[in-house]
């Protein structure tokens, strides 16, 4: 009934903490970018530039002042746009948080 002994080596000290701007969970990031300019890339490669008005747990997204870019060229503008979350590859902040 011997209990396993603790690891011999102590846990290595944390590397230097990341800069404050990188702290926080993905959720914190998403909360932080609401109301900011973002770039949403879909899995198809299409980019949507706009102001993030809100998003939900499925990553459905409401964007304002939306510009659709395909291969770097502007292809469409929408005043508002709802993007279904399953198509989203990433959300990138396009202005400082």
């Amino acid at each position, binding site marked *: 009934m011997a209990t396993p002994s603790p690891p011999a080596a102590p846990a290595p000290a944390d590397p230097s903490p990341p800069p404050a701007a990188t702290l926080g969970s993905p959720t914190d990031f998403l909360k932080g970018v609401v109301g900011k300019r973002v770039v949403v890339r879909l899995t198809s490669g299409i980019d949507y530039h706009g102001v993030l008005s*809100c998003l939900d747990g499925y990553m459905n997204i409401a964007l304002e002042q939306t510009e659709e870019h395909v291969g770097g060229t502007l292809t469409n503008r929408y*005043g508002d746009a709802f993007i279904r979350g399953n198509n989203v590859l990433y959300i990138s902040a396009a202005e400082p948080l």
Partner: protein
Amino acid sequence: MDPASSAIQEPFDLIRLSLSERVFVKLRGDRELTGVLHAYDGHMNLILSDVEETIMIVEQPDGAPEGQNTVNVAKRKMEMLFVRGDGVILVSPPSRT
């Protein structure tokens, strides 16, 4: 508080505010719809009436270099349409004023 953004707390609010309005829908498979939105649900299944579907058919002739594709556009009209939600990429309501 900005009255325009205060109306929207979650992305589906954008769709709710578009009921009975003509909306633009971007679908998988290079298809687009415009029609009057009658109903939707959490899957983004949609009921549209007075619908025009635009189908982009990209053809790359044999041996043609990249970027020399010909794009044919086919259109058709339907009185009433059920759209399965998983095909939806983007929904854009008429601009709110």
